[in-house]
């Protein structure tokens, strides 16, 4: 069984149900979760990535490629995440950031990093200070870092919403292309209808209702 399954996933805070989903995301497919802020979107992502705060209670299972990851810590879930900001580590160079993502047993680390940078149109950027990069360049480094860790799924938390419209479209296409090429199931959380349309997959609210764009 491949892909990402959220099986009867329900998250409550006290009596309030924030998330109620029973869905399957096939490899290369995008599930978009839309809703206003405070609707439980980030709660859902926190649950999937494994950082749900203690005051929430969760039932149901999260299964990735046939493995129940519900009780696994974040680092063992093999899910990459891209936040609203790029969250590049400011004390490491671009190459250092990418090396952090690359699994420890990987050989030819420098070559892998350089090849990845070239593919992203950032050839020769390994020694650069992330703080000197443009917004688009930083976004691409963040994506590359996530991909170098060999994830089996990708989660997007209103990704790149700080970028201007044109750049944002560019980066979105880049992320979707790479995710599809690697056959990664993808969960996109957003409040932006444009994001949802571009993703071309099913669009639901955190409570599982279909959204018609």
């Amino acid at each position: 069984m491949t892909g990402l399954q959220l099986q009867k996933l329900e998250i409550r805070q006290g009596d309030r149900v924030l998330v109620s989903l029973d869905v399957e995301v096939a490899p290369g497919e995008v599930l978009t979760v839309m809703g206003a802020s405070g609707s439980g979107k980030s709660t859902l992502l926190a649950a999937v990535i494994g950082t749900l705060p203690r005051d929430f209670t969760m039932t149901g299972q999260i299964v990735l490629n046939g493995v129940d990851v519900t009780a696994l810590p974040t680092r063992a879930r093999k899910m990459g995440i891209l936040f609203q900001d790029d969250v590049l580590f400011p004390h490491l160079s671009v190459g250092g950031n990418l090396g952090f993502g690359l699994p420890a047993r990987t050989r030819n680390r420098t070559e892998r990093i350089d090849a990845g940078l070239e593919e992203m149109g950032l050839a020769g950027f390994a020694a650069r200070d992330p703080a000197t990069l443009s917004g688009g360049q930083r976004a691409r480094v963040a994506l590359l870092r996530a991909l170098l860790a060999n994830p089996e799924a990708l989660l997007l938390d209103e990704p790149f919403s700080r970028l201007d419209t044109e750049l944002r479209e560019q980066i979105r296409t880049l992320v979707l292309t790479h995710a599809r090429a690697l056959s990664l199931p993808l969960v996109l959380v957003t409040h932006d209808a444009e994001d949802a349309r571009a993703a071309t997959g099913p669009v639901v609210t955190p409570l599982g209702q279909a959204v018609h764009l």
Partner: protein
Amino acid sequence: MTPGKVATGTGTAGTGTAGGRLLRLMPGLTLWLLAVPVLAGFAGTLAPAFGFDPLSGTGPGLAAFTTLAQWPGLRAAAWLSVTSGVGSTLLALLISLGVVATLIGRPGFATVQRLLSPLLSVPHAAAALGLAFLIAPSGWTARALSPWATGWMQPPDLLILNDPAGLALTLGLVAKETPFLLLMILAALPQTDARQRMTVAASLGYGRLAGFALTVLPALYAQLRLPVYAVLAYAMTAVEMAMILGPTLPPSLSVQVVTWATEPNLAHRGTAAAAALLQVVLVVGVLGLWRMGEMGVRRLVRHAARSGWRAARVDATLQPVLLGLALTPALALAAGLAGLSVWSVAGLWSFPDAWPEDLTLATWTRAAPGLWQASITSLTLALTATLAALVLALACLEAEHRFGLNPQAWVLWLLYLPLIVPQVAFLPGLQMLALSTGAIGGWAAVAAVHGVFVLPYVFLSVSAPYRAWDDRIAVQGAALGASAARVFWRLRLPMLLTPVLTAAAVGMAVSVGQYLPTLLIGGGRVETLTTEAVALSSGGNRRVIGAYALLQMALPAIAFGIALALPRLIYAKRRGMGVV
């Protein structure tokens, strides 16, 4: 953990591993390490007051209190402890609040922030010695004014230093405590959105000081309470400052306790214990009165807020007064420290010359062996105590983060315990404990007791930046497959390099400045720059005193210098780290 019920703090918890289990124990262990010496020492100090003394073999009784009551200096000594303590705390609080109220949102604010660390890092003994050199009848002030203004050709026979009212002592305490309170205010300020409140108050027509007092102060003081109590307790029971600047006949109560407790024949240990208990009662009583004062001021502030009095014209008169009040101790301290340096290289320097006839390194050369020895001892003690404190503090904070612990309010109180319980009330008892276990005079025992005082400062210094660290970085690291340990070592610690090094420098400064713990637990055999400087202070060889005091200042200053320079060096090419 049952499947389907996830409750991890960040999902990175290493609960299963041995390291994770050890880490989980650290907060509890740390609190024990803080509380046990203080409480055991307190009990050990008090027992002889009621006649329980294994060394003198007396039975239970109240004889010690009778002896204490018969001491003719008792009333004056106790009263001095109250007046100098309350007076200096009130002044220091007023000055630091006034400075912050005046400077919020103005360019001078950053200057004050930069000046704080060097001022804070000056040990109490060095500050007191500097001030003594400045205001003594033969000091720099008298020299600068003589003979043209005063007509003095000989140092006058005046009790300016060691004055019976304790004014010199109060000045010294204000000079040392104001920077500490300022630092605490600056740390608490971001959580009060002071600038917005001040802007709202100003837009409603309120003056700057009134706006601060009515809108910022109530929120600020809630977080300032513990530091203020620590300052008050310290000021009431200060030992080395009172020895150098305070009156002598009688001295302050805490100095008398130390005199009795360190008498070689142990005859006055009971009296010392009784006096220490009295000191504790005085501190508790004054803290109680202060608390009532707080409530009174709060009612006053609420009443003033309702009355709608804008006090807009008060600023023009009060701000220069506050500035003068703030500058006097700061400048006195700076001049005093400059005086120490000049004395250490002075050749012949007779009264009333304002400058020595020649400058020479003779003092330094002659005292070099002793200076070197004491510096090495001070440095190794400080490094050991600071490293241990840093490890414990970081382990506690990391455990808090990984296991989602929520420290209760009483934990903070416990952390402040060694700062609020007077040193004279628990160190003599610890000394007895060290005596009976044979640990006395040992370097390790002194390092351990330094750690008890270093840990709270290190923890308070590093905890705010540690908790403020962007948690998404940990999530991002974990999502990339990093373990909790890897996130700590490769991401969190390197990113927090500046606050960690600053906390280490604070710890070094605290350890280097320790006088009473070193004296009592070291049994007089562990000689640091501080114990030597204080011991020399009664002798009057200003050149040697200057050299010791200068080195005593230099060690913490170097530590702060490293804390400032190293991150800039390491992260010279990382603009995102905000150090260059």
